[in-house]
């Protein structure tokens, strides 16, 4: 859905996206005349990843993630496209709001990090203490800020105090009033080279990090863990541990199946830009891997529903993860090879 808003000389187009970081970047750049789709931003920024870190726990449950750390997509994309951003943090909350007001007076839509928990317009089941959400503020009307939140369908608004609260949420990744906006945008961008760099980076991350918790190795590592859950944990905990994987995979922002579909969309778009049939074929291959991840989610859903009956589903889930790992390994190797020849 596309909406635009004309006032104070700012015409800001809001487009809903699956993932907040992609969405903010895509919407901000659009304002400056650079049209990049969400999958394009995601691919160039190397947003696809996999990690399983059993020692890092949230709510007592080990963290599995299908994405790099927050802020990485943004950082990589701006570097690869040569876009310079102005970035600021403020220790004094009121100063940060003053700086924002000044920006808005100058007609600069401003991106910022916020905590999700106190976002009043968010659905309750999604309000966790997650502090790396991105939104754009582009207008102030009678003490109310007009917000383009990439995961919402239309505009939202927050009062001065509400906005201040989410900008100074505390805990992990506390945003500390961080805000950013493009300082200089190049006249022409070299999309092809940026795409190549983006793909190369993702392949490297998925294939070569010499620690067993990351990339394709991480998926195999997770398979081993999942197999051991019913032996090591209570049925309740074993189910929740496995459930967290699916939450990370399907949660708001992934666009489904742990970003695999979004990345397929990127590869498809890249195939057109590069005029390469082989890339298009690879896009379909990744789509079918995404379908396997969804199968994993279905098995997990069943595990949780029947957690009080003993069954062999954990083995089935682990076996499936191993199949996925093998397929992803082949996929990224082929993608890497093809990318080098482009």
């Amino acid at each position: 859905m596309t909406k635009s808003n004309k006032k104070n000389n700012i015409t800001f187009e809001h487009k809903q996206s699956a993932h907040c970081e992609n969405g903010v970047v895509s919407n901000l750049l659009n304002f400056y005349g650079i049209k990049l789709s969400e999958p394009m931003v995601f691919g160039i920024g190397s947003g696809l990843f996999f990690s399983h870190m059993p020692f890092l726990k949230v709510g007592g449950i080990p963290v599995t993630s299908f994405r790099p750390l927050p802020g990485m997509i943004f950082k990589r994309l701006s570097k690869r496209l040569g876009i310079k951003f102005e970035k600021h943090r403020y220790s004094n909350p009121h100063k940060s709001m003053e700086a924002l007001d000044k920006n808005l007076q100058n007609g600069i839509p401003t991106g910022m990090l916020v905590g999700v928990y106190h976002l009043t317009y968010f659905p309750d089941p999604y309000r966790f203490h997650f502090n790396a959400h991105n939104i754009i503020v582009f207008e102030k009307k009678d003490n109310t800020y007009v917000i383009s939140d990439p995961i919402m369908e239309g505009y939202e608004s927050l009062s001065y105090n509400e906005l201040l609260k989410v900008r100074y949420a505390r805990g992990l990744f506390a945003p500390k009033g961080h805000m950013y906006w493009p300082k200089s945008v190049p006249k022409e961008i070299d999309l092809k080279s940026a795409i190549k760099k983006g793909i190369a980076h993702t392949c490297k991350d998925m294939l070569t990090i010499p620690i067993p918790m990351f990339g394709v190795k991480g998926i195999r590592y997770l398979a081993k863990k999942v197999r051991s859950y019913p032996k090591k944990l209570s049925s309740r905990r074993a189910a929740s541990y496995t459930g967290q994987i699916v939450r990370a995979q399907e949660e708001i922002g992934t666009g489904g199946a742990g970003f695999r579909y979004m990345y397929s969309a990127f590869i498809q778009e890249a195939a057109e830009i590069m005029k390469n049939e082989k890339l298009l074929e690879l896009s379909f291959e990744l789509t079918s891997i995404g379908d396997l991840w969804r199968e994993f989610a279905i098995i997990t859903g069943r595990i949780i529903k029947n957690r009080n009956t003993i069954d062999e589903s954990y083995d089935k889930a682990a076996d499936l993860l191993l199949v996925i790992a093998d397929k992803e390994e082949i996929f990224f190797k082929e993608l890497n090879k093809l990318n080098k020849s482009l």
Partner: protein
Amino acid sequence: MKSKDVPQDDANMMQGKFKEPIYSVDEKGNYTTVKSVGWDAKNEVMKDAWDNVNNRIDKAKQDVLKGKSSPIAYYIEKNIMDVGIVASYMRIWKWRVRRHLKPSVFNKLSDEMIDKYCEVFGVKREIFLNNDLLNKEEKQINDKE
């Protein structure tokens, strides 16, 4: 996944506030997004996560009612926080928050400190200090269905 296969299993997870774009392939083989209200497999894990939260809230509530912990223990769980997050909002050390979990220490806290906790938890002072009300407290979200 094909566009026509994008599930629409509504479990009121988004409370009608929005639909989520899911990437899928249309009949011509092109990627597109389809808005979805939810998917059974995902709803199941979300519900399980909230069950866990609600169990922790219940347990904390019992501890407070039995006099084993101060109300802080209950409000930490109710706000899906942990000692670390509370400490950073309070701007005090974690070990101090942990100490305040003891009813004997809690009962001697200054008014100022109590007010600060109330602000962090978004609760009125008279409610915060009245444990009897805990019995009547409504349950966390997702038990509404």
